[in-house]
């Protein structure tokens, strides 16, 4: 649905903006540091994202923020993208924390022990409806200008003084008439004015007899230009035609999009903790366990967090499949998982939209995932129960730490155990969210290492999770 529009954007970018540089005007343009065409890269990147924070985009594209901003500003003026500037806290700017910050803003911005420092974050998004119009207008103007020049009609002659460079139009003609009535004089310096010829068809040398030829050559040149333009822009025009009847992909304002995306994330995970995770990943410096997230020991909540964590950890070890990942059983899901992981890898390190896309993809992958997850959970908790038994039998010291975990885990198990009891199957499917789940089920950061160690000590056939 959105693909034809993306193609249109790409064609337009390559047609019109491929010599745009993001260097400032007063910077030296050396051969080495010439980055002409960066605009095309930026636009292409934007076709793969919806609303994206400019800092994240800069990181993905490995561009300096300032250069990116300059390019984005140019596009904003061309009406190709829309931008939104919002003041948010640096750390995980969630919607509700933004609301909090907004109220905190009214007070001096410091509340209690928390320092709510507000930075202005800029977001940008392609504006498809306007792109369609802008491209059509541009084409129309180009054709019009060439045609007008070709037929030489309705253009108001311009004159320029060679001495002082002052410009006049034909409207000033009576004022400029010189004493002898033969030519036009400049008002300030009394130099004889020159006719300023058409810009597109530069005047060939040789007036007089050559004038006729010059005129003919100009006509030919203009006709050539018109011809070339039509030929080279044909794919763009075709794409315009294709896109004409399609409904425009509309993302809405930043707030609306965020609300929708988080709602979608919620629908996929069944819980707003998952939503907060995906949102966290989007807005904040991607920190999986940002300060004020609640400890949601819920099954779904941990899964949500796990996804984010997994994408981060896996992005570093993409090739190596986790050892606990059983090759048999859910092949389909594993491949899907692989694909999804690829997706997150390709989009760069833990970008918001990567998390978003994975969330959305997961939701689209379908409810069979849900079933698989349920089955995995059963397997996981079966293993966990087994582990607990082993721990109880093992030595005391390592167990202290685990004991600390146990109550929480036992409670969680109890809670999830309900689910487990509900369904009877246990096919031992593994899931990549295992470590995250383990982490989530346990306590938080402090206990992370401990819990990670504990399983490593055990002989777990089924579940070996990586350090989360």
């Amino acid at each position, binding site marked *: 649905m959105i693909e034809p529009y993306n193609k249109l954007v790409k064609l337009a970018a390559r047609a019109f903006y491929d010599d745009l540089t993001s260097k400032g005007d007063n910077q030296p343009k050396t051969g080495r540091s010439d980055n002409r065409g960066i605009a095309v890269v930026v636009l292409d990147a934007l076709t793969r994202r919806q609303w994206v924070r400019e800092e994240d985009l800069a990181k993905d594209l490995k561009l300096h923020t300032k250069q990116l901003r300059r390019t984005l500003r140019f596009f904003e003026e061309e009406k190709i993208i829309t931008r939104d500037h919002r003041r948010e806290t640096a750390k995980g700017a969630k919607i509700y924390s933004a609301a909090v910050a907004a109220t905190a803003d009214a007070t001096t911005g410091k509340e209690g022990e928390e320092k709510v420092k507000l930075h202005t974050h800029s977001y940008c998004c392609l504006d498809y409806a306007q792109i369609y119009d802008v491209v059509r207008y541009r084409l129309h103007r180009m054709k019009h200008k060439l045609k007008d020049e070709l037929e*030489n*009609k*309705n*253009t*108001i*002659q311009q*004159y320029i003084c060679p001495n002082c460079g002052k410009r006049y139009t*034909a*409207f000033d*003609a*009576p004022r400029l*008439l010189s004493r002898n*009535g*033969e*030519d*036009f004089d400049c008002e300030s310096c009394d130099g004889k004015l020159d*006719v300023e*010829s058409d810009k597109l068809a530069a005047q060939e040398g040789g007036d007089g007899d050559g004038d*006729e030829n010059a*005129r003919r050559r100009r006509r030919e040149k203009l006709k050539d230009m018109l011809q070339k333009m039509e030929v080279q822009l044909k794919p763009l025009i075709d794409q315009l035609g294709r896109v004409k009847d399609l409904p425009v992909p509309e993302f809405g304002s930043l707030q609306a999009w965020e609300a929708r995306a988080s709602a979608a994330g919620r629908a996929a995970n069944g819980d707003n903790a998952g939503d907060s995770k995906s949102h966290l990943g989007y807005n904040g410096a991607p920190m999986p366990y940002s300060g004020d997230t609640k400890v949601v020991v819920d099954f779904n909540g941990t899964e949500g967090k796990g996804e984010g964590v997994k994408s981060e950890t896996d992005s570093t070890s993409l090739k190596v499949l986790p050892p606990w990942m059983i090759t048999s059983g859910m092949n389909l899901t594993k491949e899907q998982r692989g694909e999804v992981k690829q997706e997150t890898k390709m989009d760069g390190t833990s970008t918001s939209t990567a998390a978003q896309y994975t969330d959305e993809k997961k939701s689209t992958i379908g409810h069979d995932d849900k079933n698989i997850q349920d089955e995995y959970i059963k397997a996981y908790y079966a293993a966990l129960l087994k582990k607990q038994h082993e721990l109880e039998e093992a030595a005391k010291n390592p167990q202290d730490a685990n004991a600390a975990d146990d109550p929480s885990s036992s409670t969680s198990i109890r809670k999830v155990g309900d689910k487990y009891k509900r369904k009877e199957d246990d096919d031992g499917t593994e899931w990549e969210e295992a470590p995250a789940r383990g982490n989530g089920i346990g306590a938080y950061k402090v206990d992370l290492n401990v819990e990670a160690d504990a399983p490593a000590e055990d002989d777990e056939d089924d579940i070996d999770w990586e350090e989360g």
Partner: protein
Amino acid sequence: MQLHPRYFGRNLRDNLVSKLMKDVEGTCSGRHGFVVAVTGIENIGKGLIRDGTGFVTFPVKYQCVVFRPFKGEILEAVVTMVNKMGFFAEAGPVQIFVSNHLIPDDMEFQSGDMPNYTTSDGSVKIQKDSEVRLKIIGTRVDATEIFCIGTIKDDFLGVINDPTTV
């Protein structure tokens, strides 16, 4: 309309009307264009005596014919001056300039005591006092002046009537 007391008397109204016509006809306002002729007096209000002098001011409402050139309009005009940059023509009160790049390519400027534009075969000549039909492509309206740019490059434009052959 300001009137000197010497005109007061039986013919006050006629004096007023003639003074109006004398003053207003031929002037130009940017909004309405050139006032060509006064066609009727609608209303003459009560006169107000100015302090210090004996002049009396009357508000007069009148109807008149105005002339305002528009872009895209086709007019006949009489050539007044020919120049290598183009030629000037007048269509009544308004002056129009046609620059040489809006003159058909086959017409060349020829200087001399009677500068003119002429075709290569000499069949068509534009010189002083020729009548041409031209199209307005732009108007410039000051507070009290209107000036136009025209073209003769389109179809059916150009010389209507050559003064030498007539």
